[in-house]
């Protein structure tokens, strides 16, 4: 009897194992089959505010067929084919917008190819979290998608942005981030970082800012009169504007509070661990300029908690080399001249960082992550002051910045080139 029971359970267990093996097959099946050409490859999503409650979502999709044509026959001055198209959808929220988007055009939206989510300024000031909620829940969208804030409307960036020199604007943005990160011009922020910063105590996220560059007179206008029409608005090719990714927009508790200017942005970047190099241009003996190329950087921020308040020791150590000296009187081979250049470099960095700290105190947004340092050193204290940190404590913290710049090399040439009379 016992044996019979046992064998039954073995059979049951075998059935269970078989079921476990076979069930995953139902996860995917002919019923979810989508061929590659039946997909809409969304590369950029732009989200704007529309009315008090609605959103205006712009999807920029690649048309792969055009992409191939552009690559193969693009050489000989043929009429440029625009390999992407924009769809703008007004909806109650982003999820709704995606549904309407799929109604508007026949293909299924594929968000895997998305490079960037651009949030319009209006919406960002209202708060980024509600509109991003859809993307936090959707498994198809990766956490590595970059997030940017637009100056003005995100839709304008997508509709008017000039894709050149690449053929689709998303590639421009991608290239910009991949290259410029090294030279302390800008830093990418991906979706995962944004979410983790939003949920961490004592730190506010920042996002790179994208805007349409002011039009240069002359320029490309009037060239491309043969215009293709955009889905939503008629934007002539000639009216396309160059996209600029500079500076940052900073958030406070999930809402955009301000944009940084270039000095503040660089100060922010110096304090970030991510960027390792960059060029500092400093006065060389007053009159002319010298450029220093930073090759490595170490930043240490230590909070000192005392009765009087908070003091942050910011210690920046930089190594670099001389990339250009425009003053013939300065000879980098001489230690005193090199020392002077180092001092100038230190001063420039100090100014940048001070500006960033000031801005942080001014807009009461802790995008430098100073509060997090306190949370790390004294979590109990943070529990008391955390609530009021941004508005009461942050504007009053003291900062002690020390910059140490070491120039190791002078490039290929030792001194400046001297014409022999």
């Amino acid at each position, binding site marked *: 009897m016992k044996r019979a029971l046992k064998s039954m359970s073995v059979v049951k267990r075998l059935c269970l194992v078989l079921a476990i093996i076979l069930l995953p097959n139902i996860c995917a099946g002919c019923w979810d089959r989508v*061929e*590659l050409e039946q997909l809409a490859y969304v590369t950029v999503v732009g989200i704007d505010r529309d009315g008090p409650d609605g959103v205006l979502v712009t999807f920029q999709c690649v048309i792969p067929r055009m992409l*191939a044509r552009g690559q193969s026959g693009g050489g000989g001055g043929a009429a440029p084919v625009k390999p992407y198209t924009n769809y703008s959808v007004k909806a109650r929220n982003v999820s709704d917008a995606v549904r309407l988007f799929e109604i508007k055009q026949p293909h299924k939206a594929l968000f895997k190819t998305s490079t960037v989510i651009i949030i319009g300024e209006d919406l960002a000031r209202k708060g980024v979290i509600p509109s991003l909620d859809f993307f936090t829940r959707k498994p198809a969208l990766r956490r590595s998608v970059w997030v940017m804030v637009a100056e003005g409307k995100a839709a304008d960036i997508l509709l008017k942005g000039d894709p050149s020199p690449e053929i689709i604007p998303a590639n421009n943005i991608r290239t910009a981030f991949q290259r410029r990160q090294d030279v302390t011009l800008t830093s990418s922020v991906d979706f995962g970082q944004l979410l983790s910063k939003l949920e961490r105590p004592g730190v506010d996220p920042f996002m790179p800012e994208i805007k349409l560059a002011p039009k240069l007179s002359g320029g490309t206008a009037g060239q491309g009169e043969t215009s293709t029409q955009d889905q939503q608005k008629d934007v002539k090719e000639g009216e396309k504007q160059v996209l600029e990714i500079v500076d940052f927009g900073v958030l406070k508790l999930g809402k955009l509070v301000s944009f940084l200017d270039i000095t503040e942005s660089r100060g922010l970047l110096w304090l970030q661990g991510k960027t390792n190099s960059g060029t500092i241009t400093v006065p060389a003996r007053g009159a002319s300029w010298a450029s220093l190329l930073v090759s490595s950087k170490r930043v240490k921020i230590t909070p000192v908690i005392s009765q009087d308040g908070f003091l942050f020791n910011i210690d920046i150590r930089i190594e670099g080399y001389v990339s250009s000296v425009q003053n013939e009187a300065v000879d980098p081979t001489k230690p005193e001249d090199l020392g002077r250049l180092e001092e100038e470099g230190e001063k420039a960095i100090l100014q940048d960082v001070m500006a960033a700290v000031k801005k942080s105190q001014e807009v009461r947004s802790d995008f430098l992550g100073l509060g997090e340092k306190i949370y790390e050193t004294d979590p109990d204290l943070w529990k008391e002051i955390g609530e009021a940190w941004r508005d009461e404590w942050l504007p009053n913290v003291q900062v002690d910045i020390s910059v140490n710049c070491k120039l190791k090399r002078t490039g290929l040439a030792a001194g400046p080139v001297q014409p022999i009379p």
Partner: protein
Amino acid sequence: MFRKPRRPKTMEERKQRQIDAKLEAPHPDSQELNIPFGLSLDDNLALFKNLFGNASDLLVREFSFGARQEIRVALVYIDGLSDTNSISEAILKPFVYRSLSDDKSPILPESAYPMIRDWLITFGSVKEAARINEVLDYVLTGCAALFIDGTSQVLIVVVKGWKARDVEEPKAEAFVRGPRDSFNETLRTNTALIRRRIKTPRLRFDTLKIGRMTKTDICVVYIHGLTDPALKDEVISRLKRIDTDGILESGYLEDFIKDNPWTPFSLLDRTERPDKVAGALLEGRVAIVIDTTPFALLVPAVFSEFLQAPEDYYESFDYIRAFRWLGLIIATFLPSVYVALSTYHQEMIPTGLVLSMAAGREGVPFPALVEALSMEISFDFLREAGARMPRSVGQAVGIIGALVLGQASVAAGIVSPIMVVIVSLAAVASFMIPNYSSSHAIRFIRFPFLLLAGAFGLPGIFWGILVLLLHLASLRSFGVPYLYPVAPGVPGEWKDVFFKAPRWMMDFRPSLLRARKIRRQAPGQMPGPPGGSSGEGDDPQIVSTGREKQG
């Protein structure tokens, strides 16, 4: 009143009898012929000619010799199977000389036979036979039979010699470095090629005859005292079980002695290279060499062996082995993974790739699965046509096929360019597998995988891999697990699986072959710097001569 019916035999017995009767029909009854010849030469010859039905290639030369031509003799052989030179030199000439000799004393009929046997025939290999079927067998294998009047004994002179292909370069196994001889269709040549490599009396050739009509000689080759006797006995017993009318190629045997008859994977290795056979014998395996085919079988065979080429052992540094495993995976799974990713899991493809894949698929009228299947099938058409056509036509097939499949179908928008890349990459990878038979299996299992991928996506592929691995793990080749030494993990023996260790590291033979002597070579043979007392004064003479020359 009624006759009591004869007690019927069991069903099996009756069935066996029926089968035997049907099989025997075209053969001369062996029982009937198992009788000695008579004494009369004429009767014997008549009987023999009658057996062959006056076939034109049966040559009967009757002559008489002796001082007074008193002894009548007849030479019987098959034209084309025997060496006519030897016949005239070693058989006919001595008779003529004897007849012309000075010795005029008549030869007694009783003494004729021993005289001819012992000193008249000047050929090395002479045998005696008395029974009709024996003589028949000898004559059919190319010996000459000498019938002598007045005796029922028949002298057999082994003058086998037929037009055979020379020992040439192997046709089916190409290589760069290694010995260039290969087996041909003559069993003796083949055994000699093996013997030339393994010079030990312990190399044994156990010969069997299989095939009621072909009577094919089959040699089971092993090294006595090294090969596991149980393995050898198993091979022989499996071979003995075969009862068929003909064995024309090693493939016939393969089907009969395979452990699992229903698997696409080949459970025996076959080769036409004597060096490969010798290598296998030295590992403790058994070779089966078959007359009339250059392909010998090696047993047991394991899966990893099909990714080993003999050349791997000749080139000391070998990284290609790992690539072959990669090629195996690509050949098996690449098309199905492409179909799965492109129809179900587009999120898994890198952005740039998915865009160009989509651009290529634009306007293709079929779903990816149909596209892949049709490409695979047409590739197999092409390969088969190229292999079967005469060489001059074959090239044309190749060119047209490549143009049609590669260029025109893409230009016509029937197939996407990436699919062409995928299918041809998989095809090239399948050609990388050195063993032709097992690359067949790999090409075959692509199709179920494609269907699984088309129906269920990646889970389907994984499920298929599971079943495939279960199947492979269940296979055995003469008692050795097919995935050895990976699946019954013997990590110490992975020196020859994913990469080939240097020769001095492979001190032991594969353990599951149960060779009697497991050690292959003396340990510690890793080459090092010149040993002994190295230093200046080591070889003063050479040093001094060097100095003299400099001076």
